[in-house]
């Protein structure tokens, strides 16, 4: 029992601790990836309870910075199959429960 408890505690701890942005898949250039990641963090922190707002903000900023036709998905649970332009995808987790997917495809 103690073992189980400790395990569950540890998991809770980790889930609490694990709020940092974690990139799952990206083929972007280093500079672009960092910028996109920071943008996602900013947007998700700003719109912590409004995923649509966050997605909109990310999309519009990316369109301005890297040219049009960016697509952004922010959510806690979704499945997807997308076609993206090479060197223009970022799939990351943030905040322990949010998945952010952004890609470019004109």
């Amino acid at each position, binding site marked *: 029992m103690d073992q189980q408890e400790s395990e569950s505690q540890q998991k809770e701890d*980790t*889930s609490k*601790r*694990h709020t940092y942005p*974690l990139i*799952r*898949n990206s*083929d972007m250039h280093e500079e672009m990836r960092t910028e996109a990641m920071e943008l996602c963090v900013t947007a998700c922190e700003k719109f912590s309870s409004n995923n649509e707002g966050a997605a909109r903000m990310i999309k519009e900023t990316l369109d301005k910075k890297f040219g049009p036709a960016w697509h952004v*998905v922010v*959510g*806690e*649970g*979704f*499945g*997807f*199959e*997308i*076609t*993206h*332009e*090479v060197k223009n*995808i970022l*799939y990351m*987790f943030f905040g*322990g*429960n*949010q*998945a952010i*997917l952004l*890609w470019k*495809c*004109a």
Partner: protein
Amino acid sequence: MDSLYFNLNHPKEKTNNIFKNIFQRGSMILVAIKADFNWVRMPFSNIAKSDRTGKKNPSPISARRSSSIAGGPRLKPGSVVPRNIASVRDDGEQDDDDANAWDNRALLKPDDQLNLTEAELKEEITRILKANNPNAPQNIVRFNYKEKMYKLIPHVEQLAIHFQMDGNLIPVDSEEAKRQLMMKKDDENSPESESEVVNAETEVKPTEEEDEDGNKRVAGQKEKKPANQFNFSDRASQTYNNPSRDRGEMTEPPPRLNFSSNATQWEIFDAYLEDYEQQQKSKEKKPSSKTLEKQKVKKTNQADQGDDMLKVAKSAKILERMVNQNTFDEIALDFKYYEDDADDFRDQEGTLLPLWKFACDKAKKLSVTSLTWNKKYTDLFAQSKGLILLYSLKNPSYPEFIYYTESGVMSLDFHSDYPHLIAAGFYDGSVAVYNTAESTQVPKYTSSARNGKHTDPVWQVKWQKDDLDGNMNFFSVSSDGRVVCWTLAKSELLFTDVVTLSLENSLESPDGGIVAALGCGTCFDFNKQQDQIFLVCTEEGKVHKCSKSYTNQFLDTFDAHHMAVYSVVWNSFHPKIYLTCSADWTVKIWDHTCKDPLFTYDLGSAVGDAAWAPYSSTVFAAVTADGKVFVFDLNINKYEPICEQIVVQKKKTKLTHIAFNSKYPIIIVGDDRGNITSLKLSPNLRKKPKEKKGQEAPKGPEYEIPKLDKILSLVRDPEAASKQ
């Protein structure tokens, strides 16, 4: 015809102008106007009198005519004309009476006529007909904005137009009329055309009649188009349309990839957990990874050094030399200060002290094929093998420059004026010029198969003075029997064949023909005083004296050796003396005016190279295939070398070349294993003869030539010399 009325108050000029205008419109009106005009010109005084008297000075014609007009039915009331002739109107009824009845008529007076006395009647009343319009307002006042007040307008328009008609008549003889006549004549179908043309009146007919007339004509014939007075015509044309063509092109779409995944809470959780574990692991590994990083940094540093070396090349070079100075400290001291004390006890013989050894891994087991000192930087010399190495005495461990060549390098020469230029001859027969000032491996100039390349190895190259055009040039000799002068033009090497070494006795081919055979040149040297004269040696052992001026003809030919001549060198001072060395073990000293050698030395092995010392006319050195260096001083011993020394470590190492430094008492010798040894000459080998106390040893060519001459004279004429 309408009646005309004129304002008599008009100034005369204006009236005339009106007349003129009317006059121009047509001749029909002219009659009436003329009549009126006459009337107008009637003296006004008469009219005035007749007004009053009625009988006095009557002007019957004028009166009658005027009445015919003035009494016309359309006389406008209030017009100016009737006022002046009002009295005349009263006589209108009598117009048709005879002239005789005129006087008998009783005067009828109107009731309201004033009864004037005789005196009053006789009184002269002058009336002036003015050009002013009495109806025109005289007192127009307008506001003047400029002066901010009402002002009287002094000048009022006096013109009053009572009738105006623009006619459409044209003179019969005018251009327009003629044209219209012509057109009408052409239209012969029209029955009325002739009469119309002649009768100008039809033109003047009122428009209504014209229309009626025109309608009639429409019924009878086609309507005629009026002439186009602007000579205007419509034209239209269509340009060709360029044929259009469809073209389609598709650009390559940007590369795309598919990506699919599921974002779920548990996946996110797992991902974080995995990452967390990895972090834990990396923390454990951190110490080791740090060391790895350090190693990496070291490696990168080493890699970077290559680039940095270029930046700090100069300082690195200095450092390298300092290190070398430390490692070869003893040798450096020997080079500078060591003098063999044993020489004092030996009578004449001297020794050679080995100093640095120059060896390069890259040149291992490559035979030294040429050695030459730089004439300006006396510490620098070049060595050629399969590659060209430039060493400095300051850095014996590694060459200053390395040039890799495609073919084996057989010969080298530094330019005396441009010490950065090196001429090189190759085994494949080509020649090239390297510029050490440029950091490229590629030669600045190179000869190709197209521009006169030798067909056999180039055994020797030598720079010559710039030619008359100021172009640098050098000579080369090759086994193909040619001596070629190469001129450095702007971007290419130009060649001139100076001499072809034809053999005296041409070979007979098996079928009886004669084959022109060429001698195989091995070496050559230019006379130091007369640089047009040079010697060319061949593998056949012959020495040809040639001149640049006479190609294909030898000034002289010596049968010098039995085997190939390896080297020929003019004496540094004496313009007539030269030495040759050969594979037949001998070194010979010659006077170029003399057929026979002055001295012959047998060295017991093939002599690879021989050289005169730059400091004395009587000293020369030779290297042999058994690894020995011989130094002769004719002044000391005419028959035996004053130094004979083995300088190679291993047996069977052949010495191939030797070169004296022009400044320091050292020689360098190259062997067939790629090593170069520098040797210091002991004091006995460079002894100045006849040193007397309190008297400086004589120096210079003035002294050196007679010194050699004296010795030579002993050889030439021993008896005479002994008598002396």
